[in-house]
C-alpha cells in the first residue's frame, strides 16, 4: 500500500498509534479548512469593505469575526425550498458534489514541517516521524488537477437540475470556462513538474527549500520555472475558481445568481462555503507550487513552528491578492474571457513549456546553454508569429464573408 506515498509514518509497521496519528491529521486538516474558510469569508467582506470605504461586518464578535458563523447558523434554520420543476435527486446531489472535491483538494497540501537548515520537512509526532500533510501520494499534484476537473460537476448539475433558465445559462458558461482554463492550468503545472522532477507535493516543496541562490534569493519555482508559469497559473486559477474578474458564471446583472439562483437554506450555504474553500485551497496550492510552501528559515524557536508560520503568511498574502483583484478590476466580457484562455494563456504556457524542456535537455547534454535557449526562443517567436498570422487571416476572411 504505497497509496499514501512517501510519508515516513507509513513506511514502517502500521500500528494503532499510526492510525490514530493519521486520524488526528484528518480531523486537524478538516478543522483547519473550515476555520480558514470561515475567516476567509469574513476577511473578504472586511477587506472589500475597506476598499469601498465602508465598515464591513462589525457586529458579531470582535471586528465582526463571528459574522460567518452567525450566517451559517441562520442558514440552518431557513426553510429548505426545492422548486417544483427541479430534478429532485440531482438537485440535492449537486451541492454535495461541489463540497466534497473542495475538501479533498486540501489533503495533498503540505501545511507545515521543518524545512529549515536542510531538514527534510518531517516532524516528530508522538514518537513517530511524519510529514505535516494528510497524504503524499506519488501522483501528488495530478490529484489536485483531478479534483479541480470534477469540481465542475456540482456547478453544471446544479444549473441543469434547477429547471430554470438563468441557472442553466450560468452552468453552461461555467463548464465552458472551467474546461477551457483547465488546459492552461495543467500546462503551467507541467512546467513546475519539469523543473522539480517530481509530482509529489512534498518533493516539490523539498526542491524549493534550502538557502537558495547566493544564500538569500529563495529557490522558488516562481524564479526557477521562469515567471511565466506562475502568471498563467494565477490567472487560470482565478478563472477556475470563477472569481472576479472572471466571474461570468454568476454575473448578477445578467444571470440573477447563476447556478445557485434556485438554492436556499443550507444547500446554498454549501455552495457558498465550497467557493471560498476553493479560494483558500487554490492559494495553498499556488504557495506549494511556486513559493516553496512551508519552506523557509527558522528565525527563532523550533523549526516545525516556522513551517506553519511561513505557510500561513504566504497563503494570506495570496488571499489578500485575490480580494484586492476582486475589488479593483471590472468583469471581463465573455469573448475576452475565451480569447484570453485559448489564444493567450494556452499558447503561452505551451511555448514556455517547450522552451523549459529545451533548456533542461541542453543542460543534460552539455550544449551551449545560451545558443540553445536563443534558438528555442527564435523558434517559439516564429510559432507565435504564425499563430498571429493565422488569427489575422481568419479574421480578415470572416470579415470578407468567405467563411462563417
Amino acid at each position, binding site marked *: 500500500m*504505497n497509496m499514501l506515498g512517501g510519508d515516513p509514518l507509513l513506511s514502517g509497521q502500521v500500528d494503532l498509534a499510526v492510525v490514530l496519528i493519521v486520524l488526528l491529521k484528518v480531523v486537524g486538516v478538516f478543522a483547519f479548512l473550515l476555520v480558514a474558510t470561515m475567516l476567509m469569508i469574513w476577511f473578504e467582506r472586511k477587506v472589500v469593505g475597506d476598499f469601498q470605504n465602508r465598515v464591513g461586518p462589525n457586529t458579531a464578535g470582535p471586528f465582526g469575526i463571528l459574522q460567518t458563523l452567525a450566517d451559517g447558523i441562520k442558514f440552518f434554520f431557513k426553510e429548505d425550498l426545492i422548486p417544483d420543476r427541479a430534478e429532485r435527486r440531482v438537485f440535492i446531489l449537486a451541492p454535495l458534489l461541489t463540497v466534497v472535491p473542495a475538501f479533498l483538494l486540501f489533503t495533498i497540501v503540505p501545511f507545515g514541517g521543518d524545512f529549515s537548515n536542510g531538514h527534510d520537512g518531517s516532524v516528530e509526532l508522538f514518537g513517530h516521524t511524519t510529514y505535516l500533510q494528510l497524504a503524499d501520494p*506519488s501522483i501528488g499534484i495530478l490529484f489536485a488537477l483531478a479534483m479541480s476537473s*470534477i469540481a*465542475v*460537476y456540482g456547478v453544471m*448539475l446544479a444549473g441543469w437540475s434547477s429547471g430554470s433558465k438563468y441557472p442553466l445559462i450560468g*452552468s453552461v458558461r461555467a463548464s465552458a470556462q472551467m474546461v477551457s482554463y483547465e488546459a492552461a492550468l495543467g500546462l503551467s503545472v507541467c512546467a513546475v513538474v519539469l523543473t522539480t522532477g517530481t*509530482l509529489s507535493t512534498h518533493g516539490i516543496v523539498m526542491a524549493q527549500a534550502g538557502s537558495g541562490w547566493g544564500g538569500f534569493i529563495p529557490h522558488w519555482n516562481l524564479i526557477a520555472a521562469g515567471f511565466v508559469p506562475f502568471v498563467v497559473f494565477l490567472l487560470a486559477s482565478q478563472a477556475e475558481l470563477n472569481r472576479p474578474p472572471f466571474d461570468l458564471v454568476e454575473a448578477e446583472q445578467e444571470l440573477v445568481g447563476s447556478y445557485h439562483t434556485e438554492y436556499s437554506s443550507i444547500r446554498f450555504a454549501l455552495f457558498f462555503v465550497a467557493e471560498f474553500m476553493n479560494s483558500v485551497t487554490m492559494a495553498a496550492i499556488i504557495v506549494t507550487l511556486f513559493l516553496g510552501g512551508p519552506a523557509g528559515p527558522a528565525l527563532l524557536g523550533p523549526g516545525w513552528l516556522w513551517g506553519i508560520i511561513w505557510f500561513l503568511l504566504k497563503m494570506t498574502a495570496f488571499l489578500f491578492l485575490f480580494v484586492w483583484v476582486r475589488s479593483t478590476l471590472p468583469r471581463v466580457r465573455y469573448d475576452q474571457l475565451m480569447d484570453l484562455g485559448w489564444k493567450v494563456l494556452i499558447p503561452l504556457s505551451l511555448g514556455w513549456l517547450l522552451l523549459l524542456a529545451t533548456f533542461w535537455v541542453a543542460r543534460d547534454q552539455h550544449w551551449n546553454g545560451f545558443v540553445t535557449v536563443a534558438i528555442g526562443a527564435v523558434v517559439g517567436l516564429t510559432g507565435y508569429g504564425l499563430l498571429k498570422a493565422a488569427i489575422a487571416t481568419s479574421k480578415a476572411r470572416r470579415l470578407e464573408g468567405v467563411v*462563417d
Partner: protein
Amino acid sequence: METAVFIVCALIVLAGGLGVVSSRNPVHAALSLIATLFGIAVLFLNLGAELLAVVQVIVYTGAIVVLILFVMMLLGVDSEEDLETEPLVGQRLLAGLVGLLFLGAILAIIIIGKESIVTGSHSVTSAISPTVSNITQIGTELFTTYVFPLEVTAGLLTIAVVGAVVLSRRPRDLEPIPEPESMTDMGDEPLTAIPEEGAH
C-alpha cells in the same frame, strides 16, 4: 482488504453500468457513467496503478463526460425521448441474445477451465520493476521504447483537431442566400415585421 475494496468497487461499477442502459433520462445515464468510471479508477488504485487511476479521473470523468453533459445541456435533451420505437427492428431481442451468449461464454470458460484459469503466475501486465514508482516506469517506457507510436498518436490527434476546425468552417456558397423581403429596408415603407397570419 484488497478483496473488500474490489467487491465494493465492482458493485458500484455494475450498478453504474446498469444505470447507464436503464435510465430514461440522459443526464441520469451520464451520472451513472461517472459512477462507473470512478469505480474503475478505484480498481486501478487497488491494483497499484496510481497513474492510470488519476488519468482515468482527469480524462474520462473530468473531460469526456463533462463534454457529454455539456452537449446535452446545450441541445436541451431534457425531454424524455420515446424509447418504445426501435431504430433497428428486433434490436432488443438481439441485444438480449448477444448478452446471454456472452455470459454463457464467460461461464463456460470458468466451468471448463476449473483451477487452470488461475495459474498463479505473474501477469505479463504487471510492473517491470517493483521498486520504482509506476509513473517513472510509464514515462520512461513511453519516451524510449514507445516514442514512435507516441509521436504518431500525437500527430493523429493534431490532424483530428485541424480536421474538425476545417470541417466546421466550410467556405460559404459564393452566392449568399437572399434575405427575405420583409427583413430588408426597401426605403419606402417603415421597417416593421409583417404580422403573420393567424398570429395573436
